[in-house]
Protein backbone atom coordinates (compact mmCIF):
# COMPACT_ATOMS: atom_id res chain seq x y z
CA UNK A 1 0.00 0.00 0.00
CA UNK A 2 1.49 3.28 -1.11
CA UNK A 3 2.70 5.32 1.85
CA UNK A 4 2.51 8.96 2.80
CA UNK A 5 5.52 11.24 2.61
CA UNK A 6 5.77 14.30 4.83
CA UNK A 7 8.12 17.06 3.74
CA UNK A 8 9.52 18.90 6.74
CA UNK A 9 10.52 22.52 6.85
CA UNK A 10 13.28 23.96 9.00
CA UNK A 11 14.87 27.21 10.00
CA UNK A 12 18.47 27.37 11.16
CA UNK A 13 18.54 23.61 11.44
CA UNK A 14 15.49 23.37 13.71
CA UNK A 15 12.20 21.96 12.48
CA UNK A 16 9.44 24.60 12.29
CA UNK A 17 6.11 24.07 14.03
CA UNK A 18 4.42 23.55 10.68
CA UNK A 19 6.51 20.42 10.17
CA UNK A 20 4.80 18.80 13.13
CA UNK A 21 1.45 19.76 11.68
CA UNK A 22 2.41 18.05 8.45
CA UNK A 23 3.61 14.87 10.18
CA UNK A 24 0.46 14.75 12.29
CA UNK A 25 -1.71 15.11 9.21
CA UNK A 26 0.37 12.53 7.36
CA UNK A 27 0.05 10.11 10.28
CA UNK A 28 -3.71 10.58 10.41
CA UNK A 29 -4.03 10.04 6.69
CA UNK A 30 -1.72 7.03 6.69
CA UNK A 31 -3.65 5.41 9.53
CA UNK A 32 -6.85 5.73 7.55
CA UNK A 33 -5.20 4.38 4.43
CA UNK A 34 -3.61 1.59 6.40
CA UNK A 35 -0.09 2.54 5.51
CA UNK A 36 3.01 4.21 6.88
CA UNK A 37 4.54 7.67 7.13
CA UNK A 38 7.95 8.66 5.89
CA UNK A 39 9.37 12.10 6.43
CA UNK A 40 12.05 13.97 4.59
CA UNK A 41 13.92 16.90 6.06
CA UNK A 42 16.15 19.13 3.97
CA UNK A 43 18.41 21.77 5.40
CA UNK A 44 21.89 22.76 6.54
CA UNK A 45 24.48 20.50 8.16
CA UNK A 46 23.18 21.30 11.63
CA UNK A 47 19.72 19.97 10.78
CA UNK A 48 18.14 17.92 13.54
CA UNK A 49 14.98 16.16 12.46
CA UNK A 50 14.69 13.45 15.12
CA UNK A 51 11.63 15.08 16.66
CA UNK A 52 9.65 14.11 13.57
CA UNK A 53 9.43 10.61 14.98
CA UNK A 54 7.63 11.96 18.05
CA UNK A 55 4.74 12.92 15.83
CA UNK A 56 4.39 9.64 14.03
CA UNK A 57 6.97 9.33 11.26
CA UNK A 58 8.41 5.83 10.84
CA UNK A 59 11.25 6.58 8.52
CA UNK A 60 13.00 9.93 8.43
CA UNK A 61 15.35 10.85 5.63
CA UNK A 62 17.64 13.72 6.44
CA UNK A 63 19.44 15.58 3.72
CA UNK A 64 21.77 17.94 5.50
CA UNK A 65 24.18 20.06 3.51
CA UNK A 66 25.14 23.66 3.94
CA UNK A 67 24.28 24.27 0.31
CA UNK A 68 20.71 23.68 1.47
CA UNK A 69 20.67 26.33 4.21
CA UNK A 70 18.51 28.53 2.05
CA UNK A 71 15.67 27.20 -0.07
CA UNK A 72 17.15 26.14 -3.43
CA UNK A 73 14.15 25.02 -5.44
CA UNK A 74 16.01 22.73 -7.85
CA UNK A 75 17.96 20.95 -5.12
CA UNK A 76 15.01 20.56 -2.77
CA UNK A 77 12.96 19.32 -5.66
CA UNK A 78 15.54 16.83 -6.76
CA UNK A 79 15.85 15.42 -3.25
CA UNK A 80 12.13 14.85 -2.88
CA UNK A 81 11.69 13.50 -6.40
CA UNK A 82 14.48 10.98 -5.87
CA UNK A 83 12.81 9.81 -2.69
CA UNK A 84 9.38 9.70 -4.33
CA UNK A 85 10.71 7.67 -7.22
CA UNK A 86 12.53 5.29 -4.90
CA UNK A 87 9.43 4.45 -2.92
CA UNK A 88 5.77 4.49 -3.90
CA UNK A 89 3.71 7.22 -2.22
CA UNK A 90 -0.05 7.76 -2.41
CA UNK A 91 0.24 11.24 -0.99
CA UNK A 92 3.00 13.76 -0.40
CA UNK A 93 2.26 16.38 2.23
CA UNK A 94 3.97 19.68 2.92
CA UNK A 95 2.98 22.92 4.62
CA UNK A 96 1.55 25.72 2.48
CA UNK A 97 4.22 28.17 3.53
CA UNK A 98 6.06 30.37 1.04
CA UNK A 99 8.39 27.44 0.44
CA UNK A 100 5.56 24.92 0.20
CA UNK A 101 3.66 27.08 -2.25
CA UNK A 102 6.72 27.09 -4.47
CA UNK A 103 7.90 23.50 -4.04
CA UNK A 104 4.47 21.84 -4.12
CA UNK A 105 3.56 22.77 -7.69
CA UNK A 106 7.00 21.90 -9.00
CA UNK A 107 6.78 18.52 -7.36
CA UNK A 108 3.33 17.88 -8.76
CA UNK A 109 4.50 18.75 -12.27
CA UNK A 110 7.60 16.61 -12.00
CA UNK A 111 5.74 13.60 -10.68
CA UNK A 112 2.64 14.10 -12.82
CA UNK A 113 0.42 14.08 -9.70
CA UNK A 114 -2.40 16.53 -9.00
CA UNK A 115 -1.75 19.26 -6.44
CA UNK A 116 -4.28 20.21 -3.77
CA UNK A 117 -3.08 23.50 -2.30
CA UNK A 118 -3.75 25.13 1.06
CA UNK A 119 -5.88 22.24 2.27
CA UNK A 120 -7.72 22.57 5.57
CA UNK A 121 -9.03 19.06 5.89
CA UNK A 122 -8.19 15.66 4.45
CA UNK A 123 -10.80 12.90 4.38
CA UNK A 124 -10.60 9.34 3.21
CA UNK A 125 -13.80 8.43 1.45
CA UNK A 126 -13.23 5.90 -1.27
CA UNK A 127 -10.00 7.70 -1.96
CA UNK A 128 -8.55 10.96 -0.73
CA UNK A 129 -10.89 13.93 -0.51
CA UNK A 130 -9.56 17.38 0.35
CA UNK A 131 -11.30 20.52 1.56
CA UNK A 132 -9.76 23.84 0.76
CA UNK A 133 -10.82 27.49 0.96
CA UNK A 134 -11.51 29.25 -2.33
CA UNK A 135 -12.76 32.70 -3.39
CA UNK A 136 -10.73 34.39 -0.67
CA UNK A 137 -12.19 32.11 1.96
CA UNK A 138 -15.77 32.88 1.02
CA UNK A 139 -16.39 29.29 0.01
CA UNK A 140 -15.02 25.83 0.70
CA UNK A 141 -14.25 23.36 -2.07
CA UNK A 142 -14.29 19.60 -1.50
CA UNK A 143 -12.46 17.72 -4.20
CA UNK A 144 -11.61 14.11 -4.75
CA UNK A 145 -8.21 12.95 -5.90
CA UNK A 146 -8.74 10.69 -8.90
CA UNK A 147 -5.09 9.93 -9.58
CA UNK A 148 -3.03 7.27 -7.78
CA UNK A 149 -0.86 9.90 -6.12
CA UNK A 150 -1.19 13.50 -5.08
CA UNK A 151 0.69 16.40 -3.57
CA UNK A 152 -1.13 18.16 -0.74
CA UNK A 153 -0.02 21.45 0.79
CA UNK A 154 -1.55 21.91 4.18
CA UNK A 155 -2.90 25.21 5.46
CA UNK A 156 -0.70 26.31 8.36
CA UNK A 157 -2.56 26.22 11.70
CA UNK A 158 -5.28 23.93 10.46
CA UNK A 159 -3.91 20.88 12.25
CA UNK A 160 -2.91 20.62 15.89
CA UNK A 161 0.27 18.58 16.22
CA UNK A 162 -0.33 15.36 18.16
CA UNK A 163 2.49 13.44 19.76
CA UNK A 164 2.34 9.77 18.82
CA UNK A 165 5.88 8.46 18.93
CA UNK A 166 6.94 5.63 16.70
CA UNK A 167 10.13 3.66 16.56
CA UNK A 168 11.65 5.04 13.49
CA UNK A 169 14.69 4.69 11.31
CA UNK A 170 16.67 7.76 10.48
CA UNK A 171 19.02 7.85 7.62
CA UNK A 172 21.08 10.51 6.07
CA UNK A 173 21.07 11.09 2.39
CA UNK A 174 23.79 12.79 0.46
CA UNK A 175 23.33 15.77 -1.79
CA UNK A 176 24.96 15.07 -5.10
CA UNK A 177 26.58 17.52 -7.45
CA UNK A 178 24.75 20.68 -8.11
CA UNK A 179 23.10 21.08 -11.45
CA UNK A 180 24.72 22.97 -14.28
CA UNK A 181 21.37 23.57 -15.90
CA UNK A 182 20.25 27.17 -15.78
CA UNK A 183 18.34 27.47 -12.50
CA UNK A 184 17.25 30.10 -10.04
CA UNK A 185 19.43 30.26 -6.95
CA UNK A 186 18.58 31.81 -3.62
CA UNK A 187 21.57 34.00 -2.92
CA UNK A 188 20.63 35.50 0.42
CA UNK A 189 17.95 36.13 2.98
CA UNK A 190 17.25 39.74 3.98
CA UNK A 191 15.41 41.07 6.97
CA UNK A 192 11.80 41.92 6.15
CA UNK A 193 11.09 45.42 4.88
CA UNK A 194 9.75 47.75 7.56
CA UNK A 195 6.79 48.62 5.37
CA UNK A 196 3.64 48.87 7.39
CA UNK A 197 1.04 46.28 6.66
CA UNK A 198 -2.13 47.77 5.30
CA UNK A 199 -5.19 47.15 7.50
CA UNK A 200 -7.12 46.02 4.48
CA UNK A 201 -4.66 43.27 3.72
CA UNK A 202 -3.07 42.15 6.95
CA UNK A 203 -3.98 38.65 8.05
CA UNK A 204 -4.31 39.94 11.61
CA UNK A 205 -5.65 43.34 12.62
CA UNK A 206 -5.45 44.84 16.09
CA UNK A 207 -7.83 47.78 16.29
CA UNK A 208 -8.17 50.37 18.97
CA UNK A 209 -10.85 52.86 19.79
CA UNK A 210 -11.65 55.64 22.15
CA UNK A 211 -11.15 53.31 25.07
CA UNK A 212 -7.41 53.78 24.69
CA UNK A 213 -7.87 57.27 26.11
CA UNK A 214 -4.76 58.81 24.55
CA UNK A 215 -2.90 58.47 21.27
CA UNK A 216 0.26 57.42 23.09
CA UNK A 217 -1.50 54.32 24.36
CA UNK A 218 -1.64 52.88 20.89
CA UNK A 219 1.89 51.62 21.53
CA UNK A 220 0.22 48.87 23.58
CA UNK A 221 -1.49 47.72 20.41
CA UNK A 222 1.63 48.10 18.34
CA UNK A 223 3.44 45.81 20.75
CA UNK A 224 0.66 43.26 20.53
CA UNK A 225 0.71 43.46 16.74
CA UNK A 226 4.44 43.00 16.73
CA UNK A 227 4.20 39.97 18.98
CA UNK A 228 1.55 38.46 16.75
CA UNK A 229 3.55 39.07 13.60
CA UNK A 230 2.02 40.00 10.22
CA UNK A 231 -0.47 42.17 12.07
CA UNK A 232 -1.58 45.70 11.28
CA UNK A 233 -2.86 48.24 13.78
CA UNK A 234 -6.26 49.64 12.92
CA UNK A 235 -8.40 52.29 14.50
CA UNK A 236 -12.07 53.03 14.93
CA UNK A 237 -13.45 56.18 13.41
CA UNK A 238 -13.63 57.75 16.83
CA UNK A 239 -9.89 57.37 17.26
CA UNK A 240 -9.18 58.72 13.79
CA UNK A 241 -11.57 61.62 14.27
CA UNK A 242 -9.77 62.49 17.47
CA UNK A 243 -6.61 62.73 15.40
CA UNK A 244 -4.91 59.86 17.21
CA UNK A 245 -4.34 57.71 14.14
CA UNK A 246 -4.06 58.40 10.40
CA UNK A 247 -7.06 57.95 8.16
CA UNK A 248 -5.44 55.05 6.37
CA UNK A 249 -5.69 52.97 9.54
CA UNK A 250 -9.40 53.46 9.83
CA UNK A 251 -11.61 50.42 9.86
CA UNK A 252 -15.23 50.61 8.83
CA UNK A 253 -16.06 53.99 7.44
CA UNK A 254 -16.69 54.03 3.74
CA UNK A 255 -18.09 50.57 3.60
CA UNK A 256 -14.80 48.97 2.73
CA UNK A 257 -14.38 45.77 4.61
CA UNK A 258 -11.30 44.46 6.22
CA UNK A 259 -11.46 40.71 6.32
CA UNK A 260 -8.52 39.42 8.30
CA UNK A 261 -8.29 35.94 9.71
CA UNK A 262 -8.11 37.42 13.21
CA UNK A 263 -9.43 40.74 14.43
CA UNK A 264 -8.91 42.29 17.85
CA UNK A 265 -11.32 45.07 18.78
CA UNK A 266 -9.76 46.75 21.79
CA UNK A 267 -11.51 49.54 23.63
CA UNK A 268 -14.01 49.68 20.81
CA UNK A 269 -17.66 49.73 21.75
CA UNK A 270 -18.82 48.31 18.47
CA UNK A 271 -20.71 51.29 17.16
CA UNK A 272 -22.21 50.09 13.96
CA UNK A 273 -19.99 52.16 11.72
CA UNK A 274 -17.10 50.07 12.92
CA UNK A 275 -18.92 46.75 12.73
CA UNK A 276 -19.84 47.32 9.12
CA UNK A 277 -16.18 47.38 8.27
CA UNK A 278 -14.89 44.34 10.11
CA UNK A 279 -17.83 42.01 10.48
CA UNK A 280 -16.48 39.53 7.95
CA UNK A 281 -13.27 38.89 9.85
CA UNK A 282 -12.91 35.18 10.42
CA UNK A 283 -12.36 35.36 14.16
CA UNK A 284 -13.16 38.41 16.25
CA UNK A 285 -11.84 39.02 19.75
CA UNK A 286 -13.21 41.89 21.81
CA UNK A 287 -11.67 43.47 24.89
CA UNK A 288 -13.77 46.07 26.63
CA UNK A 289 -14.55 47.13 30.16
CA UNK A 290 -18.28 47.33 29.43
CA UNK A 291 -19.83 43.88 29.36
CA UNK A 292 -22.85 45.27 27.50
CA UNK A 293 -20.83 46.83 24.71
CA UNK A 294 -22.36 45.90 21.32
CA UNK A 295 -19.02 44.55 20.15
CA UNK A 296 -19.49 41.48 22.31
CA UNK A 297 -22.51 40.51 20.23
CA UNK A 298 -20.36 40.22 17.14
CA UNK A 299 -17.20 38.86 18.70
CA UNK A 300 -16.37 35.17 18.83
CA UNK A 301 -14.40 35.58 22.03
CA UNK A 302 -14.30 38.37 24.55
CA UNK A 303 -12.67 39.47 27.74
CA UNK A 304 -14.37 42.01 29.96
CA UNK A 305 -12.02 44.21 31.89
CA UNK A 306 -9.40 46.91 31.84
CA UNK A 307 -7.55 46.83 28.55
CA UNK A 308 -4.52 48.45 30.12
CA UNK A 309 -4.05 45.29 32.17
CA UNK A 310 -5.33 42.77 29.64
CA UNK A 311 -3.44 43.85 26.53
CA UNK A 312 0.06 43.74 28.03
CA UNK A 313 -0.72 40.30 29.46
CA UNK A 314 -1.96 39.16 26.06
CA UNK A 315 1.22 40.43 24.42
CA UNK A 316 3.29 38.60 26.99
CA UNK A 317 1.44 35.31 26.51
CA UNK A 318 1.61 35.56 22.73
CA UNK A 319 5.35 36.10 22.90
CA UNK A 320 5.65 32.98 25.05
CA UNK A 321 3.57 31.00 22.61
CA UNK A 322 5.58 32.10 19.60
CA UNK A 323 8.87 31.44 21.32
CA UNK A 324 7.71 27.92 22.08
CA UNK A 325 6.91 27.26 18.43
Amino acid at each position, binding site marked *: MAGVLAILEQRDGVLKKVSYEVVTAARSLADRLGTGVDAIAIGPMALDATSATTFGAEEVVILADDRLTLYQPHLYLRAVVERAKAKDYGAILLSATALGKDLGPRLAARLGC*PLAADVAEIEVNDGIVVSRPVYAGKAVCRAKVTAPCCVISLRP*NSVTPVEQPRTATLHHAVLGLDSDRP*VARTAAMKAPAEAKLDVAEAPIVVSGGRGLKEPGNFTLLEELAHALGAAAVGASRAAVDAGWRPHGDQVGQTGKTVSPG*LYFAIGISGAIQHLAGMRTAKVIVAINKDKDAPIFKVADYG*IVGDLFEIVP*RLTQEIKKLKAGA
Partner: protein
Amino acid sequence: MKIAVCIKRVPDTETRIKIAADGRSIDESGIKFVLNPYDEYAVEEALRRKEAAGSGEVVVIALGSDVVQETIRTALAMGVDRGVLLKTDQRVADPLVTARALVAELQTGGYDLILFGKLAIDDYHHAVGPMVAEFLGLPCVSAVVRLELGDGKGTAEREVEGGVEVVEFPLPAVLTADKGLNEPRYPALKGIMAAKKKPLEVKPVTLEPGGLEVLQLALPPERKPGRIVGEGPDAVPALIEALRAEAKVL
Protein backbone atom coordinates in the same frame (compact mmCIF):
# COMPACT_ATOMS: atom_id res chain seq x y z
CA MET B 1 12.24 41.55 -25.39
CA LYS B 2 9.64 38.90 -26.06
CA ILE B 3 7.39 38.42 -23.06
CA ALA B 4 4.38 36.20 -22.51
CA VAL B 5 1.91 36.77 -19.70
CA CYS B 6 -0.59 34.08 -18.76
CA ILE B 7 -3.81 35.60 -17.48
CA LYS B 8 -7.11 34.49 -16.05
CA ARG B 9 -10.63 35.84 -15.92
CA VAL B 10 -11.96 35.69 -12.34
CA PRO B 11 -14.89 37.04 -10.30
CA ASP B 12 -14.27 40.43 -8.72
CA THR B 13 -13.01 40.39 -5.10
CA GLU B 14 -16.06 42.22 -3.84
CA THR B 15 -18.32 39.47 -5.12
CA ARG B 16 -20.84 37.96 -2.80
CA ILE B 17 -20.71 34.22 -3.41
CA LYS B 18 -23.80 32.17 -4.13
CA ILE B 19 -23.54 28.49 -4.85
CA ALA B 20 -25.02 27.35 -8.16
CA ALA B 21 -27.72 24.73 -8.39
CA ASP B 22 -25.21 22.01 -9.23
CA GLY B 23 -23.57 22.47 -5.81
CA ARG B 24 -20.13 22.47 -7.39
CA SER B 25 -19.65 25.93 -8.77
CA ILE B 26 -20.68 29.49 -8.11
CA ASP B 27 -23.80 31.12 -9.45
CA GLU B 28 -22.39 33.49 -12.05
CA SER B 29 -25.47 35.62 -12.61
CA GLY B 30 -24.86 39.27 -11.88
CA ILE B 31 -21.21 38.65 -11.09
CA LYS B 32 -18.63 41.04 -12.39
CA PHE B 33 -15.60 39.35 -13.91
CA VAL B 34 -12.22 41.00 -14.04
CA LEU B 35 -8.63 40.36 -14.99
CA ASN B 36 -7.11 38.49 -12.01
CA PRO B 37 -5.57 41.26 -9.86
CA TYR B 38 -2.25 39.42 -9.49
CA ASP B 39 -2.10 39.08 -13.28
CA GLU B 40 -2.37 42.86 -13.53
CA TYR B 41 1.02 43.13 -11.81
CA ALA B 42 2.38 40.62 -14.31
CA VAL B 43 0.97 42.49 -17.31
CA GLU B 44 2.23 45.81 -15.98
CA GLU B 45 5.70 44.38 -15.40
CA ALA B 46 5.78 42.95 -18.91
CA LEU B 47 4.82 46.31 -20.41
CA ARG B 48 7.45 48.15 -18.37
CA ARG B 49 10.20 45.68 -19.34
CA LYS B 50 9.31 45.93 -22.99
CA GLU B 51 9.25 49.73 -22.77
CA ALA B 52 12.62 49.72 -21.00
CA ALA B 53 14.12 47.44 -23.65
CA GLY B 54 12.87 49.78 -26.35
CA SER B 55 11.51 47.02 -28.53
CA GLY B 56 9.87 43.64 -28.35
CA GLU B 57 6.45 42.16 -27.95
CA VAL B 58 4.11 41.35 -25.09
CA VAL B 59 1.63 38.56 -25.65
CA VAL B 60 -1.13 37.45 -23.27
CA ILE B 61 -2.42 33.93 -23.21
CA ALA B 62 -5.57 32.79 -21.47
CA LEU B 63 -7.46 29.54 -21.15
CA GLY B 64 -11.24 29.51 -21.13
CA SER B 65 -14.45 30.01 -23.01
CA ASP B 66 -15.33 32.80 -25.43
CA VAL B 67 -16.16 35.28 -22.69
CA VAL B 68 -12.49 35.33 -21.77
CA GLN B 69 -11.87 37.43 -24.89
CA GLU B 70 -13.18 40.38 -22.90
CA THR B 71 -10.41 39.88 -20.35
CA ILE B 72 -7.80 39.60 -23.08
CA ARG B 73 -9.09 42.90 -24.48
CA THR B 74 -8.55 44.50 -21.07
CA ALA B 75 -4.91 43.48 -21.25
CA LEU B 76 -4.70 44.70 -24.85
CA ALA B 77 -6.15 48.01 -23.69
CA MET B 78 -3.31 48.28 -21.15
CA GLY B 79 -0.85 48.09 -24.04
CA VAL B 80 -0.26 44.39 -24.68
CA ASP B 81 0.45 43.70 -28.37
CA ARG B 82 -1.57 40.59 -29.03
CA GLY B 83 -3.62 37.93 -27.31
CA VAL B 84 -4.24 34.23 -27.62
CA LEU B 85 -7.33 32.48 -26.28
CA LEU B 86 -6.95 28.75 -25.77
CA LYS B 87 -10.59 28.03 -26.08
CA THR B 88 -12.33 25.41 -24.00
CA ASP B 89 -15.69 25.24 -22.28
CA GLN B 90 -14.41 22.78 -19.71
CA ARG B 91 -14.13 23.89 -16.11
CA VAL B 92 -10.66 23.09 -14.84
CA ALA B 93 -10.24 21.82 -11.27
CA ASP B 94 -6.66 20.58 -11.55
CA PRO B 95 -3.95 23.22 -12.09
CA LEU B 96 -1.79 20.65 -13.90
CA VAL B 97 -4.34 20.62 -16.71
CA THR B 98 -4.10 24.39 -17.09
CA ALA B 99 -0.33 24.22 -16.96
CA ARG B 100 -0.11 21.59 -19.69
CA ALA B 101 -2.45 23.53 -21.97
CA LEU B 102 -0.37 26.68 -21.55
CA VAL B 103 2.88 24.81 -22.09
CA ALA B 104 1.69 23.56 -25.48
CA GLU B 105 1.25 27.19 -26.54
CA LEU B 106 4.32 28.64 -24.82
CA GLN B 107 6.98 26.21 -25.90
CA THR B 108 7.21 27.41 -29.47
CA GLY B 109 7.17 31.07 -28.54
CA GLY B 110 10.82 31.76 -27.88
CA TYR B 111 9.98 33.99 -24.92
CA ASP B 112 12.64 35.72 -22.84
CA LEU B 113 10.28 35.99 -19.95
CA ILE B 114 7.04 34.24 -19.04
CA LEU B 115 5.02 35.97 -16.33
CA PHE B 116 2.09 34.91 -14.18
CA GLY B 117 0.21 36.35 -11.25
CA LYS B 118 1.22 34.34 -8.18
CA LEU B 119 -2.30 33.02 -7.71
CA ALA B 120 -5.82 33.39 -9.07
CA ILE B 121 -8.35 34.82 -6.64
CA ASP B 122 -10.95 32.19 -7.43
CA ASP B 123 -9.07 28.89 -7.05
CA TYR B 124 -6.16 30.04 -4.90
CA HIS B 125 -3.98 27.17 -6.19
CA HIS B 126 -0.82 29.28 -6.34
CA ALA B 127 0.52 26.65 -8.71
CA VAL B 128 0.26 27.14 -12.45
CA GLY B 129 3.36 29.36 -12.84
CA PRO B 130 5.88 27.00 -11.21
CA MET B 131 4.23 24.01 -12.90
CA VAL B 132 4.66 25.59 -16.31
CA ALA B 133 8.29 26.35 -15.46
CA GLU B 134 8.95 22.71 -14.59
CA PHE B 135 7.36 21.47 -17.81
CA LEU B 136 9.39 23.92 -19.86
CA GLY B 137 12.55 23.23 -17.88
CA LEU B 138 12.98 26.93 -17.11
CA PRO B 139 14.17 28.63 -13.93
CA CYS B 140 11.33 30.04 -11.87
CA VAL B 141 10.87 32.48 -9.01
CA SER B 142 7.42 32.72 -7.48
CA ALA B 143 5.68 35.55 -5.61
CA VAL B 144 8.11 38.23 -6.77
CA VAL B 145 7.83 41.63 -5.10
CA ARG B 146 10.91 43.23 -6.57
CA LEU B 147 12.64 42.61 -9.86
CA GLU B 148 15.85 43.71 -11.54
CA LEU B 149 16.80 42.55 -14.99
CA GLY B 150 20.22 42.72 -16.55
CA ASP B 151 21.83 41.19 -19.56
CA GLY B 152 20.52 37.65 -19.83
CA LYS B 153 19.86 37.43 -16.10
CA GLY B 154 17.99 38.94 -13.21
CA THR B 155 17.52 39.22 -9.47
CA ALA B 156 14.16 38.88 -7.75
CA GLU B 157 12.99 39.29 -4.19
CA ARG B 158 10.21 37.29 -2.62
CA GLU B 159 8.65 37.55 0.81
CA VAL B 160 8.82 34.52 3.03
CA GLU B 161 7.99 34.03 6.68
CA GLY B 162 10.40 36.16 8.64
CA GLY B 163 12.32 37.65 5.76
CA VAL B 164 12.92 38.31 2.10
CA GLU B 165 14.70 35.82 -0.19
CA VAL B 166 17.00 37.27 -2.82
CA VAL B 167 17.05 34.97 -5.83
CA GLU B 168 19.32 35.16 -8.89
CA PHE B 169 18.29 33.60 -12.13
CA PRO B 170 19.31 33.40 -15.79
CA LEU B 171 17.00 34.24 -18.68
CA PRO B 172 14.78 32.88 -20.11
CA ALA B 173 12.81 32.42 -16.92
CA VAL B 174 9.31 32.13 -15.47
CA LEU B 175 8.27 34.60 -12.74
CA THR B 176 5.04 34.90 -10.80
CA ALA B 177 4.08 38.38 -9.61
CA ASP B 178 2.96 39.39 -6.13
CA LYS B 179 1.34 42.57 -4.89
CA GLY B 180 3.89 45.31 -4.50
CA LEU B 181 5.85 44.47 -7.62
CA ASN B 182 4.50 47.57 -9.32
CA GLU B 183 1.42 49.78 -9.60
CA PRO B 184 -0.60 48.63 -12.63
CA ARG B 185 -1.71 51.31 -15.07
CA TYR B 186 -5.38 51.97 -15.80
CA PRO B 187 -6.12 51.41 -19.51
CA ALA B 188 -6.41 54.75 -21.28
CA LEU B 189 -9.47 55.47 -23.42
CA LYS B 190 -7.18 55.44 -26.41
CA GLY B 191 -5.92 52.03 -25.35
CA ILE B 192 -9.46 50.72 -25.12
CA MET B 193 -10.21 51.85 -28.66
CA ALA B 194 -6.92 50.50 -29.98
CA ALA B 195 -7.49 47.14 -28.28
CA LYS B 196 -10.34 46.36 -30.64
CA LYS B 197 -7.96 46.34 -33.57
CA LYS B 198 -5.17 44.30 -32.01
CA PRO B 199 -4.85 40.61 -33.00
CA LEU B 200 -6.67 38.12 -30.80
CA GLU B 201 -6.22 34.54 -31.93
CA VAL B 202 -8.69 31.91 -30.78
CA LYS B 203 -7.35 28.36 -30.70
CA PRO B 204 -9.70 25.57 -29.62
CA VAL B 205 -8.02 23.08 -27.27
CA THR B 206 -9.10 19.80 -25.75
CA LEU B 207 -8.10 19.17 -22.17
CA GLU B 208 -7.58 15.97 -20.24
CA PRO B 209 -9.84 15.48 -17.21
CA GLY B 210 -7.03 15.91 -14.66
CA GLY B 211 -6.50 14.32 -11.27
CA LEU B 212 -8.92 16.34 -9.13
CA GLU B 213 -12.70 16.22 -9.27
CA VAL B 214 -14.80 18.82 -7.49
CA LEU B 215 -17.38 17.10 -5.33
CA GLN B 216 -18.90 20.10 -3.66
CA LEU B 217 -18.61 23.83 -3.29
CA ALA B 218 -20.20 25.16 -0.14
CA LEU B 219 -20.41 28.32 1.91
CA PRO B 220 -18.47 28.18 5.17
CA PRO B 221 -20.54 27.23 8.22
CA GLU B 222 -22.50 30.02 9.94
CA ARG B 223 -20.73 32.00 12.60
CA LYS B 224 -21.55 30.49 15.98
CA PRO B 225 -22.51 32.88 18.76
CA GLY B 226 -19.46 34.08 20.64
CA ARG B 227 -18.63 33.85 24.31
CA ILE B 228 -16.95 35.90 26.95
CA VAL B 229 -13.99 33.89 28.04
CA GLY B 230 -13.50 35.62 31.37
CA GLU B 231 -12.73 38.83 33.17
CA GLY B 232 -9.50 40.71 33.57
CA PRO B 233 -5.97 39.73 32.61
CA ASP B 234 -6.30 36.28 34.17
CA ALA B 235 -8.65 35.34 31.37
CA VAL B 236 -5.87 35.77 28.83
CA PRO B 237 -4.50 32.20 28.91
CA ALA B 238 -8.01 30.86 28.32
CA LEU B 239 -8.41 33.22 25.37
CA ILE B 240 -5.13 32.14 23.85
CA GLU B 241 -6.02 28.50 24.28
CA ALA B 242 -9.35 29.10 22.56
CA LEU B 243 -7.68 30.95 19.71
CA ARG B 244 -5.15 28.20 19.32
CA ALA B 245 -7.14 25.03 19.75
CA GLU B 246 -10.68 26.05 18.83
CA ALA B 247 -10.38 28.86 16.33
CA LYS B 248 -6.99 27.69 15.09
CA VAL B 249 -5.82 31.19 14.30
CA LEU B 250 -2.71 31.18 16.48
